């Protein structure tokens, strides 16, 4: 890409709450990150930290009990000469404008390929849905496009797959179909919500290499949601680390792996098992467990588990996002004497 620093998506201070019978669940409490055109951003974090909700917010598809209470998602849409900033979070979820972005500008693939396709319709039917919706083509052209996109994700016998029902395909094949549907309308941004988690290791590697090839070919931007740091190392240019509904650190891939600053990122990296390790050594773990979202710790949410906990600071004040380098943001008191001036 000519201009590497052209922003395509900005997520600012996103707060999303779910109103349930047992009270308000604050799923997102400050998600910030920026994605540049043509880049792959990894969003990592433990289960329940809000990764998938973040994806739903970007698609403006938060489940009915959830509400975006603060912050914004801004998508920079190309329009020939420059870009238009579209504030996705300001659009009504069911509006025409939003539907024109979904599937066309921003596409999404999901965690469970076994359940992402409607069992009652053929692959072709569901693929044509997307094509007919976003592209001005006649029936034969649409069909040709559909078969071509199945071919593009390296499915053998695309014609046969086109006429198949989902239950006739394997998990890996279904995920390829999902990718084909997502890419059929040439989106500029793809959100991949743990696309390989449910697949076996061999298939996982195949899907990842396919996604990498497709990214090289199309230069689309990808938000890759995962809890697998190995996948991040393989796929991503940038990494945003989330903990309990907040982005705690965002930086480029090398800095993430070689000089992470947030204690949580550091702890995550220490807990990766290594093949060259002494076999008798116990695996490193992060002390404690993820707190229940209804009983969030005061101050910094990570303080009860943090090895660098500073008594008198961390449990009282919430850290803000601190710019410690041009492309490196951390939400931690260790790096912000200035934070003491904040209320």
């Amino acid at each position, binding site marked *: 890409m000519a201009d590497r620093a052209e922003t395509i998506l900005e997520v600012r201070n996103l707060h999303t709450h779910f109103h349930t019978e047992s009270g308000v669940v604050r799923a997102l409490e400050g998600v910030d990150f920026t994605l540049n055109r043509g880049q792959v951003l990894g969003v990592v974090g433990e289960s329940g930290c809000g990764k998938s909700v973040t994806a739903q917010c970007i698609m403006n598809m938060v489940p009915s009990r959830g509400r975006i209470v603060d912050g914004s998602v801004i998508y920079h849409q190309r329009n020939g000469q420059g870009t238009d900033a579209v504030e996705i979070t300001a659009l009504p979820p069911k509006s025409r404008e939003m539907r024109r972005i*979904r599937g066309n500008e921003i596409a*999404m693939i*999901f965690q469970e390929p076994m359940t*992402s396709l409607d069992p009652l*319709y053929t692959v072709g039917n569901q693929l044509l*849905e997307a094509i007919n919706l976003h592209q001005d083509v006649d029936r034969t052209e649409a069909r040709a496009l559909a078969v071509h996109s199945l071919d593009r994700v390296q499915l053998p016998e695309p014609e046969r797959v086109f006429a198949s029902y989902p*239950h006739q395909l394997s998990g890996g094949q279904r995920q390829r179909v999902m990718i084909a549907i997502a890419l059929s309308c040439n989106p500029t941004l793809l959100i991949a919500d743990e696309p390989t988690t449910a697949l076996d290791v061999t298939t996982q590697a195949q899907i990842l290499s396919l996604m990498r090839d497709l990214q090289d070919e199309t230069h689309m931007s990808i938000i890759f949601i995962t809890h697998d740091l190995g996948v991040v190392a393989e796929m991503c240019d940038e990494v945003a680390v989330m903990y309990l509904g907040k982005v705690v650190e965002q930086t480029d891939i090398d800095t993430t792996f070689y000089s992470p600053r947030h204690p949580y990122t550091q702890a995550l990296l220490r807990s990766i098992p290594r093949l060259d390790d002494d076999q008798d050594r116990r695996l490193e773990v992060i002390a404690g467990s993820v707190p229940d979202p209804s009983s969030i710790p005061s101050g910094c949410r990570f303080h009860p588990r943090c090895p660098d906990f500073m008594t008198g600071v961390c449990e009282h004040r919430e850290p803000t996002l601190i710019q410690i380098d041009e492309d490196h943001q951390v939400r931690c008191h260790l790096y912000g004497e200035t934070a003491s001036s904040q209320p």
Partner: protein
Amino acid sequence: MLAFIARRLVYMISTLVLISFVGFLIINLPPGSYIDVFQAQRQLQGTHTAEAELEALKRRYGLDKPVPVQYWIWVRGFVRGDFGRSFEFNREVSELIWERLGFTVAIATGSLLFIWLVAIPIGIYTATHQYKLGDNVATIVGMAGLSIPDFMLALVLMVVIQRLFGFTVGGLFSREYVDAPWSLAKVIDLVKHLWVPIVVVGTSGTAGLMRIMRGNLLDILNMQYVQAARARGLREATVVVKHAVRNAIHPLIMLLGMSLPTIISGSLIVSIVLGLPTTGPLYFNALRQQDMYLAGTFLMFLAFMLVLGNFLADILLGLIDPRIRYE
């Protein structure tokens, strides 16, 4: 699909054969032979039966022959539409049922249509507007409909209509039309009476079906393929109708199959309360009076409708769901 239908057809016929054994057994269960019972019944009514008539009956049912032969005669008659004779009415069972079948089917199909046409849209609405005002209202009304017994609702409606509009709604016709030949006025009179049992029978069914539809649809709306369809940019109505409702309708089709017997059983209690000339009260009496050929015939009919309903539901599910079709 053809192999699928053929296989279901074989199941259906073998089930019916088994049921016919049971049906025959039940007919023969009361003590004494058919002739004894018949004679006793006649005597109770104060009439005498001629020997010749008894002989004719004996021959007709093969009562002097071994039991398997009797069974065969009964089954053969059944297939030809000869269901035996009612002791109580001393008439052919087929005539008795035939007389009442028209109204029974009319009321039952009317209420089935009513149930589906009302319950499905409300079910869809409440699921897509969960915990909103409309959902809460529908839930309360539905629960009330579910908890009020249908005979109670029938009685209340009768009283209310009588008081407010000044006409009676018991039965299917006003007095002057009961024996009158068919005419436009008689049809209008029928329609005026028919809606009451349809609403009464339909209300509780509607409430139940509405809740089932709502529950299923809520489950399906959380499925990933519904989200995926939405993520493609489809209109919300398309997402709901094409991808969610069609997946949520499965258990309802099974339910529809199982409710097929009600088409001929004719909502017993409501029919008695409203004095409707349906088959329900007839069946009820046959059981009370040990009118075994009549009761056995009903039993077979109900079983047949149930098996047929399941067969049709299976085919319908096969049409809707490729996973069943390609099994």
